[in-house]
C-alpha cells in the first residue's frame, strides 16, 4: 500500500492505520484492493473482510472526490451556502473534472516572445499541462535505442 501516497495523497489513513501494515507485508497495492474481492484480500493479508470493505469504500470515495464526481465529506456537513461555494471553487482547482467555462477562466499562457510560435501554439505554453519540446542535440549521438 505504499503507492497510496502516489495515488491518493490526500487520503486520510488514520482510521485504517491498523490495516496498512498487514497489507504492506502482503504486498497488496491500491489497485489490488480496488479490483480484487475483499475476501481474497482479507485472506492474503489475514485481516477481517469487513475492514477491507470499509477501506475499499473509503478509497473509492476518495477517488471519486478527486475526480470531482463526489463531494468531499466535510463539505456535506457544511450547511452554509457561501462556504459551500467557496469549497466548491477550491474543489474545482484540485479535481480532475472541470467545466469548460472554468477552463476558459483559468487559461493562462506563457508567451514564447515570438508571435508566430505563439500563434502555432494558440497563444503559448499554457499552465496546467505538461508540454514537451523535442529535437536533436548539439552533438548528435548515434544511439539506436
Amino acid at each position, binding site marked *: 500500500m505504499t503507492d497510496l501516497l502516489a495515488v491518493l495523497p490526500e487520503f486520510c489513513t488514520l482510521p485504517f492505520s491498523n490495516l496498512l501494515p498487514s497489507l504492506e507485508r502482503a504486498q497488496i497495492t491500491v489497485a489490488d484492493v480496488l479490483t480484487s474481492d475483499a475476501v481474497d484480500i482479507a485472506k492474503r493479508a489475514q485481516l477481517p473482510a469487513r475492514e477491507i470493505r470499509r477501506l475499499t469504500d473509503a478509497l473509492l470515495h476518495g477517488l471519486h472526490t478527486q475526480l470531482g464526481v463526489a463531494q468531499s465529506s466535510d463539505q456535506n456537513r457544511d450547511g452554509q451556502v457561501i462556504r459551500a461555494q467557496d469549497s466548491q471553487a477550491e474543489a474545482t482547482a484540485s479535481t480532475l473534472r472541470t467545466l469548460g467555462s472554468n477552463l476558459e477562466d483559468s487559461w493562462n499562457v506563457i508567451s514564447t516572445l515570438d508571435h*508566430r510560435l505563439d500563434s*502555432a*501554439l494558440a*497563444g503559448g*505554453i499554457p499552465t*496546467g*499541462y505538461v508540454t*514537451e519540446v523535442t529535437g536533436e542535440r548539439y552533438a548528435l549521438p548515434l544511439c539506436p535505442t
Partner: protein
Amino acid sequence: MSHLKDLLTYHPSGVGKTQFLLILLLSVQLPSPIGLSKSALYISTEAALSTQRLAQMLSTHPQLCDLHDPDKPSLSRILSIQTPDLESQEHILRFQVPVAIERHNIGLLVIDSITANFRAEFDPSAAKTSTGNNNTSRGNPVGAALMQRTAQLQSLGTLLRDLARKYNLAVVVSNQVADRFLPEPNTSTPYLTPGTPGAQRHPPSSHPAASHGNQPQTPMRPKSPLPPSASAPNPSSYPFPSTSIDTPAQTPDYPLTLEHQHRFFTGWGDQSSSPSITGIRHNLKTPSLGLIWTNQIACRIALVKRKARPGAAALTSISLAPGGRDEYKLLNGEAGVGMGASRWQRHFRVVFSAWAAAHALNTTRKCLCHLLAPIPTPASPFNNLYSSLPPGASEIDVSAAAPGRALRFTSAMRQAIWFVQMRPREGVLRLCRMPVMEGEEDWSPQPVKKRCWCSRVSG
C-alpha cells in the same frame, strides 16, 4: 581560441531546444498578457543552467532589452537545480519541488532534459549480454527492465501532471531523439516488399484483427528472425500470412504497425511525400522514451532541422517605388553565400497538442534569427549586418523572406519594415528602412505587395 569556442557553441547542428526553454524562463516573469508575473524553476540533468546565455538574451532580445526595472525579468527569479541521477531527480521532484513552488511563487517548471537520467540508467544491451540470449518471456531481463522503466515513466508523468494541475503550473520538459530505423525492403524476405505481389496479397483493411491477434510479440521487438523455411510461406497457400511473426508488422505502410503510426506522434516521417526532402527514410527520428512517455504529455513540440530545399536559394530583388529607382536585393534564407549555417531550415512543429492544432512552421536558420541563435558567430558574414542593426532590433522574421516579400523585424520597431540590402560586390550587408503608412498597426503582406514589385534574379 574563444573564437573557436563560440563557433562550437553555436554550431548549426543545434535546433534551439534549450534556447526555447530559456526564453520561457524569462517570459514567464513578464506581466499578464505575455507571462504570469511568476518565477521559474529550472531542473537540469546534464549541463547547468547557462546564466551567460540568459544574460545575453536579457540584453539583446528585442522584447526584453527595452524593459525597465520593475517589469524586467531578472536572473534572480530563476531557480535552478541539477539532478545527476534518477534517484535524486525523483526525490527532488516529489519532495523539494512542491515546497519550492509554494515558497517562491513558481509559474513554470522546466526539466531539461527528461531523457538523460532514464537513458543513462536504462541499458537493455547490458542486461541482455549478462544472461545471454535468454528470450523466454518470464525471465527476460530486457522485458523486466522495460517494465520497470514503464512504471517509472508513468509515475513521473502522473507526478508532473499533478504538479501542473495543483499549482496551476506550466511544466515544460525537453526530450532527446534517437534515430529510427525502418526495415530495409531489400534485406527482408521478398514478400515484405510493398511492391511485390505478396505484400499486395494482404490489404490493410481486410483482416487486421486476425493478423494482429495472432502475433505473439509487438512489432517493435520481433524475435530472432525465423529460418527462411519457416518464415517464408508459400504465397499461393497463404492469403493472409498471419502465422509468421514479422509478416505484415514489418511493412511500415501497414496501418496497424507502430512503424506506421510513429508519424502521428513523433513529429518525423509524416511528410515523406514532400518533394523537398529526399532520403527522408534515412533521416527519421523518434523522441526517446517511447509511446509510454508520449501518453504522459499533453503537447509535443518538435524542433526539426533539415536541409533547405534547393529552389529557395534564389536571391530576390525588390523595388520599393513603382518606378524602380531603388533596387534592393533581399536576403533570402539561403543567400548567405558560402555560409554553411544558412543552408539549414528549421521547422517548429506542434506535433500534437491538447489545445492547438498540429502544424509546422518553417524557420530558416540564420544567425540573425533571434529566437534560435541569439549571437552571431564572430566569423559570420552577417556581422556587418548585425552591427548595422538599430538598437533593440536583432531579429528577423525570416519566414517572411519568401521571394517577393520583405523581411520584418519582430521587435519594438513594428512600425517599419526593414529590408536587408546586400551588395555582393562590396561584400556588405546593409539594412534599408521602408516606411509604412501611418495608422497601420500590424504588418500584413498585402500593403507591401501593393507597393513593391518583385522579380527573381538568378542567384
